[in-house]
Structure formats: structure tokens, C-alpha cells
């Protein structure tokens, strides 16, 4: 999680000073995206903060897990915040927002229902932008060790001697 700045010490009031509520989940300000409850915040350098907030929402809509907090989705897309990819990401997100506006929403994140956002994503499923974001999430999200316990997955076991004495055959409901 080293890519996420911990702003837990920052008050909600501090955070909101000079920033905008962005959809339900995020606030964006100059050079950062943050959770509305200030649980986390991320510095953004090459991308517009609104673009990063849109990417985070898009990541959640592609692989929605209601028990997985936004900071893991943010970590999964943080890597796109670089000068080499910024133009391509900005244009992909702009296309997504244009599609949303064509359906009467203010923007992609302005669409309140997940199903409306998913409809927009389905319509661009074949695009290289969508496939790059989706493909990157397969490892970007699910290969975060911090995410594994949220799914019950225990990771490596050699250092603990395997499961021979730790429940390799412990289910009793079958």
C-alpha cells in the first residue's frame, strides 16, 4: 500500500478545503484524490485528479467487490499516473465521459447506478482502453497481498510448515 498516502491525520474539513466532492465516494483537489471520509488519499502527478477518480470508479465497476475498500482499487490503477501513459488515459476517460453525457449523465461518475455505468463499459468493452484497464486489474487488484485475506485466501504456507498440522482436511460439513 505504499502508493497510498495515509491522510488519516487530516481532518475532513482540511481535506474539503479547496476541493470538490466527486461522485459519492471521492473528493478531488489540486493534485490529489481522497476518500470522502478521509480514510485515504492519493497524490496524482501526471493525470488530472478527476481522471484518477474516474479510473478508480471504473475499476470498481469492472471488478465490484462490496467488501473491498476503494483504497485497493486506487492502488490497482495508481500505476497509470505517469507521463508516458497520461495522454492515452486522459483520452480514454474523456471518451467514457462523452459516452455518459450522450446518455444524459453529467459524466461517468455522475451516473448514480452501477448498472448505468456498466452499460457504458459494455458499450466500450472491445476498446483497447477498456481491455488495458481490465487486464491490468487482474493482477493489479487480485495480486495485492493485502487483498487476499478479504477473500479468505491465506497465501504462502511454507514458512508455517504447510497445513499438515493446520487444517488441510479440517472441514466437517461434508
Amino acid at each position, binding site marked *: 500500500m505504499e502508493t497510498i498516502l495515509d491522510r488519516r491525520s487530516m481532518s475532513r474539513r482540511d481535506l474539503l478545503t479547496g476541493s470538490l466532492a466527486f461522485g459519492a465516494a471521492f473528493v478531488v483537489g489540486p493534485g490529489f484524490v481522497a476518500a470522502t471520509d478521509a480514510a485515504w488519499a492519493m497524490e496524482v502527478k501526471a493525470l488530472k485528479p478527476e481522471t484518477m477518480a474516474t479510473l478508480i470508479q471504473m475499476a470498481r465497476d469492472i471488478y465490484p467487490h462490496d467488501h473491498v475498500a476503494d483504497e485497493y482499487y486506487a492502488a490497482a490503477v495508481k500505476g497509470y499516473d505517469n507521463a508516458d501513459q497520461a495522454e492515452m488515459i486522459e483520452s480514454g476517460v474523456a471518451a467514457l465521459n462523452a459516452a455518459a453525457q450522450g446518455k444524459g449523465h453529467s459524466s461517468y461518475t455522475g451516473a448514480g447506478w452501477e448498472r448505468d455505468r456498466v452499460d457504458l463499459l459494455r458499450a466500450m468493452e472491445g476498446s483497447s482502453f477498456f481491455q488495458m484497464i481490465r487486464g491490468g486489474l487482474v493482477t493489479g487488484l487480485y495480486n495485492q497481498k493485502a487483498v487476499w485475506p478479504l*477473500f*479468505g485466501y491465506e497465501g504462502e*504456507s511454507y514458512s508455517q510448515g504447510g*497445513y499438515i498440522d493446520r487444517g*488441510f482436511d479440517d*472441514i466437517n460439513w461434508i
Partner: protein
Amino acid sequence: MAAPFDLSDDSVVVVIGTGAGGGVLANELAQKGVSVVALEAGGRYLPDDYINDEWESFGQLAWLDKRTTSGDWRVAKDFSGLPAWIVKAVGGTTTHWAGASLRFQAHEFKTKTTYGDVQGANLLDWPIDLAEMEPWYEKAEAKLGVTRTGDRVGLPGNNNFKVFEAGAKKLGYKDVHTGRMAINSADYDDRLACQQTGFCFQGCKWGAKWSAAYTDIPRGEATGNLEVREHAHVLKIEHDESGKVIGVVYADKDGNQHMQRARIVCVAGNSIESPRLLLNSASNMFPDGLANSSGQVGRNYMRHMTGSVYAVFDKPVKMWRGTTMAGIIQDESRHDPSRGFVGGYEMETLALGLPFMAAFLDPGGWGREFTTALDAYENMAGMWLVGEDMPQETNRITLNHDALDQYGLPAPNVHFDDHPNDIAMRDHAYKQGMAVYEAVGATRTFPTPPYPSTHNLGTNRMSEKARDGVVNRWGQTHDIANLFISDGSQFTTGAAENPTLTIVALAIRQADHIAGEMSKGNL
């Protein structure tokens, strides 16, 4: 002369590849006093080096050189640059394999006779049979320490097996057990018993699973007759004016090329690289590649009918705990055309960790249909389906002159179309696999598509007649007496069973033959 050997030493047997075929052959020859230089494209990793982390281990071990794909198989769409999931390291894919060690059934050596003409299939009987192979299977099982053979007991069943077994029995299956596995159920041959760690596919950190990397290879080296050269990637096999092979050209880890002279060359680079090497060795004398007078080099590529079934239950399973593949249902492995296909299939327990489950459950899938499946990861059980696929002449490895590897050589293209028999078998296997789990209360089941191929077979196949295949009953090429094929590419047909035990048995047998012919002065 003792190892290491000189590049100009033309008395050595050169073995290309150090996996189940090459690694075993190299050791067996060395034990008999034959001088061997084994050239391995990858590096050397031992149990301390293996990593209990799916993607990190994949980066450490997988063969990731340039490859391309074509055909209607789903792997070409989902993993277009990764047709096969095999290993580039000393020990080859025996680091990654699951350990399932099954003998072929008698009829599987005689499919042309047993199945008759199957339209579009290039079936052929093996020039050998089960009776001839039985003593070699016995030696192979003793070498690998296969459970439920000899006096070796079975592995204990893990959670994934308990669910699988209960479902199988409810469905009426009889031949259900924790498998014949090259994973120790008790300490054996200086290797520890299985500690139920999981991560069998990432290299066994206990050494409980047999791998050539820490058994045959060091034992061969200890004789003084075997030199293993790591990061030695063979580019070409050279021959003289008489058509006999005289050595091989390889690139070392810095890309510098060397020629190692040889009395005999044995190719064991797995079923994509082995035919590719023969094709890349084309010369004025052999314009279609070495040993290719039949035109069969690279053809009849088989990868087994495969698929998986995962199922979600209302209670935890924790399938990742313990041995990855110690569980089998063998009732469907028989040949019974009343099911709508020839040949049969095995059902074997399988677990993936969360990172690989996300990648392989439904490649390309997204949205809540996909994520609610992963939400239930802890409550999942899983099995792999593996059955005989039909050899087809058009399923083949060719040289792709538009895609070059890191040495500037044409990369292999792997073309595969499913045969209607493969599709009928897969559909049947999905249905049965889902029924196994539904019988014990699965709330949701997933017929999961094939992964990149782990069983690559048939591209230099064994035949009685030179016109039908590439090698004879000893794995010796029909065209060139001192050129042998020593891996799964010699398989005439694929059978339903996981191939490693048969590759090992053939390698032990081939070593016996080669050493005998050398001492008689025939080679």
C-alpha cells in the same frame, strides 16, 4: 574422461533439455558410464529458491520466449502469446508438474485399431504396447516414488478431495482415491513426506514431489559423467555430408554462440521447442528440417482435452490447503463410444490461489457475474478434466518468420483446432464434473475453459513405418541414426493420462537402448 567436457569432444551424448525426458535420460546414461553434456536453456532453481506466490513463481520459472498462436482453441484468444505453461529451468517442467503418475491403458497404445477411423483424426497405433512398457513403468514408479504403486501408500485427502470424493460417491463413481502421485506420502529416497503446503505448481519447497532438478540431475552429476550447462539455449543441430548429426550450436547466457560436438544428439525440449529445433536446423541436404522425410515434424500436436470445473458451496472448503492434485475419479477414463466420443478422461482435484483464479476462472470475464464467484473463493472446490484428444495433421508447430525470438530465429506458431471428438468429450466432462459437485450441494458451478497447455505432445511422433512419423520404437529418428527424440513429442497418441510417467518410462528405456547400442558399436 570426466565432466566437464570439451566443446570439441565428439564422444559425448548431447541431451537438449533437462526435464522429465532429458533430465532422466541424462542421469540414466551417466549411471551407465556414458559421457553426457546436457544443455539447458534455463537456470538452476532448487527448493530453497522456489516461491510460494503464483505470479512471482511464474516469473521465475515459466518459459516466456516469443510464441504465437492460431486456430479456434480458446487459448489462442485468451492467452495468444502463451500457448503453453511450461518451465525454463534445470529439471524443466518437473518443477511445475502436479505429480499425477498414471500408466496408459492397454488400448491407448492401439487407438487406430481400437477406435477405428475417426474422421479428421490422424490416429495411429504405437509401435509398442503396454506389456512391453510394464517393466519400464515399474522402474519409473520406483524412481518417482509414486503412491499406490509398489508398497507406497496413498496421500491423505485434503478438503478439496473430501468434497470431490463425497460427490463422486453420491453420483455412483467407484474408482475414486487420492491418486497415484509422485509426491511422498512417507519419506522416500532421501525426500521428505508431503507437508500439505499447496503450491505444488510453484516447485515443492520440501522436495516431497519428485523433480529431476533435485534427484536425477545431481545424481547424474555425482557420477562424473554428466555435465549440465545452464543458460545454454540450443539454436541448431549440425550434420555432416553423410547426414549424421555431429553437434549442436547453442547460445550461452551472454548470447555468445558455441558448437558442442556430439556422438549422439537427444532432443528433449518439449513438444513445441523440439520440432521447432528440427525445423530451424534445415539445411541444403534437409530443406524441410531434420528427420522430416515424412513431413510429420511439428504435426499432430496434442494438448489433451482439458477444462476445469469449480463449484461454490454454502460453507468453506479452503481448497488451496494441501496437495494440489491428490484426488482422482477414473470411472470415465474407459473407452466407451456410447457416450458420444472415443477415448476417455480423468477427473482430478485442482486448486488455484486467488491470483490465478482471477486470471483463469473466466479469462476476459468481468462484472458481478465474475466477481460474485470470487467473493465465494473460500467456499470453492475445484477439479481438472484431462482426456485424450485426437491427433490432427493440421494441428501443428510451424516456424513463424514474422515473429523472431531473442536470437533472431523464427518463433514457433502453435496452431490448434478442437476436433469434434474433443468438444464432445469436454461437454460430457463438464456435465459430469458439475454433477459431482451438485450431488453434494453446490450452489453454483463453473465450467472453466482450458488453461495454456501443460501437456504438449505428439509433434515428433513414434511410428512403425518411416512414412507415418518421425521416430521409431526407441525414439530414434527414422532418418538419422544418431538423432533421438526423448520427450513427449514422441507420443503417437496422447491417452487420457497425465503424460510424465510415460515420458520418464520411455526415457529410462531409451537410455538402456542407447547405452546398449553404443557398447555394441552400432551408434
